[in-house]
């Protein structure tokens, strides 16, 4: 499943609409410790986090993750979203909790 299909199936909001949505989502990761994600993150993951600063994009980009998903109405500043677009990282937002997002990902076969 690619990011476009994930958005279609979940109804999550794409916060940086200019980003390509073709990356395959091959796994998930739920963590707010960037150091931990640096150590254990994988290519193609959908990363669920409440961290919203610039370094989230740096870490997601280094791991070539599929997307970042912000739970419970969290948003990112415009400058961070611009960087995400440059790095081709889709940022999705929703009102669900991190736990609920992970359950959705699992139910979708990710």
């Amino acid at each position, binding site marked *: 499943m690619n990011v476009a299909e994930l958005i279609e199936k979940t109804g999550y909001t794409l916060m940086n609409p200019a980003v390509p949505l073709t990356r395959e989502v091959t796994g998930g990761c739920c963590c*707010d410790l960037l*150091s931990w994600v*640096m150590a254990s993150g994988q290519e193609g993951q959908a990363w669920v*986090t409440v961290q919203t600063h610039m*370094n989230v994009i740096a870490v997601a980009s*280094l791991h070539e993750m599929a997307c970042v998903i912000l739970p419970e109405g969290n948003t990112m500043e415009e400058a961070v979203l611009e960087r995400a677009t440059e790095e081709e990282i889709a940022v999705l937002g929703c009102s669900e909790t991190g736990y609920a997002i992970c359950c959705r990902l699992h139910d979708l076969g990710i």
Partner: protein
Amino acid sequence: MDEVVLRKSYDVEAGDFESAGDASAGIKATLKRLGVPTGIVRRVAIAAYESEINLIIHSMGGSLTLTVDGESVCLVSDDRGPGIASIEKALQAGWSTAPDSVRSLGFGAGMGLPNMKKNADEFQIDSTVNVGTHIVMRFHLS
């Protein structure tokens, strides 16, 4: 040693979280351009990012230098202090001296040096208190 193909240095300023990742992204792009295998590029990029974050959080500023020859990729982190009192402790996963302000950003989990060591094929660290820290990481190309 084989002839050096490329040498590139990046300055990293203390406390500059906004630019964190710029050097690592540059290093990653450079290695990709040179045709270095993806798995190695990934390991170097992770080690570079951890180095960058350490320089930003803990040092008074420093640099990251990338050198590529026919046999290996080498990453050197140099800073202007304050040095590490106990390298043994600093290499323990989970041990950190990072302040709360940095922890609230998701850093300072004590994973940096262990992660650098894990990703490099060779890892050497030397530090002198009030002078600085010098880390050499080598990644074999074959």
